[in-house]
């Protein structure tokens, strides 16, 4: 229990006053020589049991009355979690604020989880008081000192973002702040909706974070204000692909304000997905609003079940409009953050692949796969060269570089060229050379060739990256591949496919752009069946080519928070929320322009998953820490803390009443006569 006036608790020893008075009274006795001793003995004997009980009850009632008075004037607070915070003013209150899109879920009254949490935290902390208030929000994750908790309500740093929060990183920041600033007594308030995407509860970082927090010398209490409530009828929309193609007229598209068909040939092919948590029995028509360059149109889609995938929805545009932006939205629901999606487009450029190898014959299947365009609208070109030719070669327009040779030494100029290519965002795929060396790129090196018997791929990552399932949801036939020889990559990597013996076949290096891959075999007949079972090789190559091509273009899609912060200041907002800070543009969904480049920022795919970390798991993440949690509901206007001095006042009055009743003279029933023992009188 905490108190607004904890200093008054210093008077708690006063509750011993009735006892002290009683004891003093007992000591201040008089001595009387008494004749009628037998009456006295009899009366004392008869009244001993009840009188003693009554005396103790009176004493207890008086003590309770004094205690009730002291507690009442100490202004106690009652609440589930703040009640456990303990009394007294804390030195520093650190507020960790989850600004992820899911916190924008609104409840009754149109108040979002974020607003509710901020309001309740501000009110509670204003009442509890601390010497210093520090805000660490999920966007920049930098400590911001606050004059008072209530200023959070109007701060641009507390508006919702489109970036998925990184709660472990926020806790690391908080731990670092405590370690550096050394507050004497610290309270950490975490406001979050406990989404799995934000908490990353399976991350190995949690052990280190928990250990770091436990090692803090200060007394730190951790409080979680959780909003785990999931929107019951949520519907989200996500654009999965946008292509601008030179093309013919497309019928059946209604453009807002203009029913006429466009006169010349360009169109957008928009693929998008609509998901909803509630499954409808029949078919439901959903109006989808499309905004392209400021012009709006609307078209209906028929939805059955939980997921609707629309492929290449054609929208005619002017032929001269080579670059632009758009927005796809559905009617707003309780979670508005996922009801719209921004995109940018540009005229398709030639997708170039550069294969650097000492054995051109060995990479022939890759050459073929990369050269065949996935659609007639796309042009793909492949160039095969020796590694030496990379120096001085213009690679700015290359989408993918395939490297099949010994990994160049870091001092080698070629290594610099590859590093620059990777930094720019192009996709870089390493294939094992015949004679691997100990050189490493991005922390990954080749092991030795293993000539074991033919092996198969046992596991692979099918929800994202190069081996992701097809748009229709079907898995690539990765398991059908026969791997006859493999040379496993080693080092700091993320395995995308592993063989039956556990060694990685395809891995991604831990680079900032996540764009450097290592494939542990080649497409040669003696190494694998990748060439003969060409689907996997083809899909893998073209996904890499498409991703690499996107990094080259002037119109790029980014996940919120994935863009380097240093570029923020040069961005100009084209579409999106007007109240966003310019420094937060990279974290807020919208369309932005920097020079002649366009950026579309959107929420991550994880945000559409409404999975919540179970309460037990959250408790285990804070195991051995002084942790408490309260589950709140969005839109709840009740205060987290309540003053309960009235309860103690009532207790005091009851105690006084009981004391008065016990002190009333008692009617004595007629007793038996007094027997005088012996002959004494």
């Amino acid at each position, binding site marked *: 229990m905490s108190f607004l006036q904890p200093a008054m608790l210093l008077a708690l020893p006063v509750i011993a006053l009735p006892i002290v008075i009683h004891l003093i009274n007992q000591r201040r006795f008089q001595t*009387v020589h008494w*004749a009628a001793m037998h009456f*006295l003995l*009899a009366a004392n004997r*008869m009244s001993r049991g009840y009188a003693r009980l009554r*005396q103790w009850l009176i004493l207890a009632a008086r003590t309770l009355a004094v205690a009730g008075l002291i507690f009442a004037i100490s202004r106690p607070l009652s609440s589930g979690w703040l009640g456990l915070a303990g009394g007294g003013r804390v030195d520093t209150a650190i507020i960790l604020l989850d600004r992820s899109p899911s916190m924008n879920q609104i409840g009754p009254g149109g108040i979002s989880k974020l607003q509710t949490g901020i309001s309740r935290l501000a009110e509670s902390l204003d009442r509890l008081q601390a010497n210093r208030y520090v805000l660490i929000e999920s966007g920049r994750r930098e400590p911001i000192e606050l004059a008072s908790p209530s200023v959070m309500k109007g701060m641009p740093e507390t508006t919702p973002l489109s970036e998925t929060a990184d709660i472990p990183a926020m806790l690391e920041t908080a731990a670092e702040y405590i370690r550096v600033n050394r507050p004497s007594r610290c309270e950490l308030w975490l406001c979050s909706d406990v989404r799995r995407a934000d908490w990353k509860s399976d991350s190995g970082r949690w052990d280190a974070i928990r250990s770091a927090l436990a090692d803090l010398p200060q007394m730190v209490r951790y409080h979680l204000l959780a909003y785990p409530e999931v929107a019951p009828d949520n519907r989200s929309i996500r654009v999965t692909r946008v292509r601008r193609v030179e093309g013919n007229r497309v019928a059946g598209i209604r453009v807002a304000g203009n029913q006429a068909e466009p006169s010349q040939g360009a169109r957008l092919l928009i693929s998008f997905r609509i998901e909803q948590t509630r499954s409808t029995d029949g078919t439901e028509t959903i109006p989808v609003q499309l905004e392209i360059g400021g012009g709006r149109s609307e078209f209906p889609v028929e939805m059955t079940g939980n997921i609707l995938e629309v492929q290449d929805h054609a929208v005619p545009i002017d032929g001269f409009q080579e670059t632009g932006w758009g927005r796809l939205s559905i009617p707003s629901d309780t979670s508005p953050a996922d009801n719209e999606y921004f995109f940018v487009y540009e005229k398709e450029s030639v997708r170039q692949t550069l294969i650097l190898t000492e054995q051109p014959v060995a990479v022939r299947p890759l050459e073929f796969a990369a050269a065949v365009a996935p659609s007639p609208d796309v042009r793909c070109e492949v160039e095969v060269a020796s590694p030496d030719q990379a120096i001085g070669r213009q690679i700015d327009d290359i989408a993918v570089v395939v490297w099949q040779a010994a990994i160049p030494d870091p001092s080698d100029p070629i290594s610099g060229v590859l590093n620059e290519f990777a930094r720019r965002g192009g996709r870089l795929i390493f294939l094992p050379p015949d004679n691997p060396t100990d050189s490493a790129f991005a922390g990954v090196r080749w092991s030795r060739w293993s000539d074991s018997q033919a092996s198969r791929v046992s596991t692979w990552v099918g929800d994202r990256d190069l081996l992701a399932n097809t748009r229709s949801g079907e898995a690539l036939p990765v398991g059908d591949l026969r791997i006859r020889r493999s040379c496993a990559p080693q080092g700091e990597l993320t395995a995308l496919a592993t063989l039956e013996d556990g060694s990685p076949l395809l891995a991604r290096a831990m680079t900032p752009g996540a764009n450097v891959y290592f494939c542990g075999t080649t497409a040669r007949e003696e190494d694998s069946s990748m060439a003969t079972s060409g689907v996997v090789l083809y899909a893998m190559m073209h996904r890499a080519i498409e991703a690499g091509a996107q990094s080259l273009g002037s119109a790029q899609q980014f996940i919120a928070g994935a863009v380097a912060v240093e570029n923020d200041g040069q961005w100009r907002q084209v579409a999106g929320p007007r109240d966003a800070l310019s420094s937060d543009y990279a974290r807020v969904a919208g369309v932005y322009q920097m020079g002649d480049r366009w950026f579309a920022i959107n929420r991550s795919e994880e945000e559409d998953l409404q999975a919540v970390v179970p309460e037990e798991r959250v408790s285990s993440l804070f195991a051995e820490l002084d942790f408490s949690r309260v589950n709140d509901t969005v839109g709840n206007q009740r205060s987290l803390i309540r003053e309960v001095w009235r309860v103690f006042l009532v207790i005091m009055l009851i105690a006084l009443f009981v004391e008065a009743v016990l002190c009333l003279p008692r009617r004595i029933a*007629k*007793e038996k006569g007094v027997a005088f023992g012996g*002959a004494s009188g």
Partner: protein
Amino acid sequence: MVGSVSGMHASPHRGASVEFAEYRRYVPGDDLRRLDWRAFGRTDRYYVKEFEADTNLRLCLVLDTSGSMGFGSSGPSKLEYAKRLAGSLAYLAIQQGDAVGLTCIAERIVRTIPPRRTPSHLRGVNDEIEHAEAAGDTRLIEGLHEFAETTSQRALVVILSDLFVDLSELRGAFDHLRFRKHDVSVFHLLDSQETQFEFRRPTRFVALEGEATVFADPSEIADRYQAAVSQYLSELKSIVLESSIDYHQITIDEDYEQALFRFLAHRNKSRGVR
């Protein structure tokens, strides 16, 4: 009054006197001198003439000098009060020509002065009364039984005590005295504090008799104490009523002259004074 010499008190026995009482038939053995010859002449029957016998009084004062009699919450103690009453009664008796004796009882009969009527005897009685001190346990019951056994002649026995004794045993002592034809009067002396128990502070009560000590908060036990005293007095009154004892409960803050007057008036009312 019972006495062997002629005095101021009407004797319960018929005897030689000037006040005619009644005739009765002569029975062999009667004094022939008391035959009424005139009545014989008129009725031819023998009658004996009887007269009211005027005798003197034997007053036996029984004074309880046990430790409990030393209590007095304000002013004189119960013993002091009893001494005044006893001295006054002794004086009145001697002045009327009655004999006065004194028996002081504490743990035993500590002093006995047989009844005499001479003025010089009064001085001796007064000296004993003056020197009596409250000390020791009370053996009043045993003392009264011993007194009853050793006092053969009928007398007016006046007991001055707080009667803090076992009531069932007290009844036996009273019955014993009545059996010996004594006229028994009791001055039951109590302090007002002993009946009302008006203490405020916690008090350590030390017994005037014995070693007992009680520490008590008077507010806790006052009600039960008063109930016990009330019950005791009620039973005592029942006993004295059944034993035909002339009982006078006196609170010692009452003027002793008033108490004495009430006693004498009560006796005069019940027996009459010539």
